[in-house]
C-alpha cells in the first residue's frame, strides 16, 4: 500500500512534461475560443480614457489615428476594436488617419468588423478612413491648420470633397477628442510634443505595455487625458464598456497561464514533500 502510494507520488513528481504542455495549451487556448471574463479592476488611466469618451454627447465626431503595425497587432488591434465599440454605441462619427503606412489596413479591418458589421455604419457618412500620410510630425502640425489639406484623398483614393462626413471637418478643433493608437514613433509622444499644447487637444492614447512607462509621465501631467495600457489595459477597458472581447480573452489566457504555472509549482512541492515523508 505504502509502496503504491510512493510510486504514485513519484510518478506525479516526475510527471511527463507533455502533461504540463497540455495544461498550458488548454489554459491559454480555452479562453481564446470560449471567453470566460475574469473580473477586472480598471486602473485610473483606463477609467479616464473611458470617461472622457463617455462624457461626449452622442453623435460627436472623433479623430482616430492608427499608428501601429502587425508587430503590435496582438496588443493594439483589440484596443482599436474596443474603442470603436464604445464610439459606435454612442453613435459617434469616426474620422481615421494613420501616420504609419501599416495603419490603414488595420483600421479598415476594425471598421469592417465593428462599425459596419455590428452597427451598420455607412462609409463616408458615419466613418471615413483617410489612409496614410508620409511626413510624421509635419503632418501632425499641418493637421492643426487643415486636415483637408493634409489628407486630400481617402484611403481608397476618393477626393474628400465627395465624402459627406468630411464637410464638417476643418482641423483639430472639429473634434472634441483625438485618440492615438500608438506603437512607437511617430505616435503619442510626438502628438504631445508638437500638437497637444499648441492646438489644445484632448488626447487619448492606446499604447502597448512597453510604452507605458514613457507615456505615464504625460498622463501624470495631464497632457494625455487617458491611456489604455497593453493587453491588461485593453481588457479593463473592455470590461468598462461592457463588451469583453479580444483583450479580455487574451488577458484571461494570460491569467490562466500564470495560475496554472503557480499551481504547478505548488503541486510540484506538495508531491515532493509527500514523497519525501512517505519514503522516510
Amino acid at each position, binding site marked *: 500500500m505504502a509502496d503504491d502510494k510512493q510510486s504514485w507520488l513519484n510518478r506525479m513528481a516526475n510527471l511527463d512534461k507533455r502533461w504540463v504542455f497540455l495544461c498550458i495549451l488548454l489554459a491559454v487556448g480555452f479562453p481564446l475560443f470560449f471567453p470566460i471574463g475574469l473580473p477586472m*479592476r480598471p486602473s485610473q488611466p483606463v477609467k479616464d480614457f473611458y470617461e472622457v469618451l463617455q462624457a461626449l454627447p452622442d453623435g460627436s465626431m472623433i479623430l482616430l489615428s492608427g499608428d501601429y503595425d502587425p508587430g503590435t497587432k496582438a496588443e493594439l488591434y483589440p484596443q482599436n476594436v474596443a474603442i470603436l465599440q464604445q464610439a459606435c454605441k454612442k453613435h459617434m462619427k469616426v474620422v481615421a488617419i494613420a501616420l504609419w503606412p501599416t495603419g490603414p489596413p488595420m483600421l479598415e479591418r476594425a471598421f469592417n468588423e465593428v462599425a459596419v458589421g455590428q452597427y451598420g455604419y455607412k462609409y463616408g457618412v458615419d466613418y471615413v478612413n483617410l489612409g496614410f500620410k508620409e511626413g510624421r510630425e509635419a503632418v501632425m502640425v499641418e493637421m492643426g491648420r487643415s486636415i483637408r489639406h493634409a489628407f486630400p484623398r481617402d484611403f481608397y483614393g476618393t477626393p474628400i470633397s465627395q465624402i459627406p462626413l468630411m464637410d464638417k471637418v476643418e482641423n483639430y478643433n472639429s473634434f472634441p477628442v483625438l485618440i492615438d493608437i500608438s506603437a512607437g514613433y511617430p505616435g503619442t509622444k510626438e502628438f504631445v510634443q508638437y500638437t497637444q499644447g499648441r492646438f489644445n487637444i484632448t488626447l487619448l492614447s492606446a499604447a502597448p505595455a512597453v510604452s507605458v512607462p514613457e507615456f505615464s509621465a504625460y498622463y501624470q501631467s495631464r497632457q494625455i487625458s487617458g491611456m489604455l495600457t497593453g493587453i491588461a489595459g485593453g481588457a479593463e477597458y473592455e470590461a468598462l464598456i461592457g463588451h469583453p472581447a479580444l483583450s479580455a480573452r487574451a488577458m484571461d489566457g494570460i491569467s490562466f497561464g500564470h495560475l496554472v504555472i503557480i499551481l504547478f509549482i505548488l503541486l510540484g512541492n506538495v508531491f515532493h514533500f509527500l514523497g519525501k515523508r512517505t519514503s522516510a
Partner: protein
Amino acid sequence: MKRQIPLLITFFFGIFMIIQYFIPHHGVNEWGGRFQGWTIIVLAFAYVLGVANVLRISLEKVYRKEADWPFKLVTCISLVLMMGIGLVEGVGEDTFFVRRLYNQLYVPMGATMYSTLAFFIASAAYRAFRIRTWHAALLAVTAMLVMIGRIPIGQGIWSGFPRLSDWIMFEGPNMVGQRAILIGAALGAISTGLKMVFGIERSYLGSGD
C-alpha cells in the same frame, strides 16, 4: 608565420581600438569608424563559409544516404532556391523574396518556435521550483510573488501585490543582483579582452609555427 602574424594583427587592432576611445581627434576617430566598417564587411564574407558548410555536410549525408537524408535535401533545395531568387530579384520590401518567402515561411516558423517558450517556461517551473534548498526556495517564492503581482487576480487578492512585484523587479533584489553580476561580468570581459589583445590566450588560433 602561422601564429606570429595573427597575434600581431590582433595586438595592433586591439590596442588601436582601446587607445582611440580616449582620443576624440577626428582623424583617429575616423580610422576607428573605418575599422568598424571593415569588420562588417569581413563578417559578411563569412556567409559564404557558412553556406558552404551547410551544403557540404548536408550533401554528404544525402550522398551517403545517412539517416534522414531526404530532409537534408529539403534544406539544400530550399537554400539554393531562396538564395537564387534573392540574388536575382534583390531583397527590397516589395519582392517575392520578402513578401512571399520571408513573410510567409520564415516569419511564422520563427514566431512559432519562439512561442514554444510558453510551454517550456511552465515545465521548467514545475520541475525546478522544488524547495529542496534555500536557493530553490528563494527562486520559487520570488518568481511566484512576481507572477501573482502581474495578473489581475493577484490584485484582487491583495491590492499590494502589483507594487510588491514592481519593487522586487525594479528597485529591490532584482536590481541589486543584476548589478553585482554586471560588474563581475564586466571584469571578466575585460580580462578576456586583455588576454586576447596581448596574446596571453592563444590556443584558439590553432597550432603551427
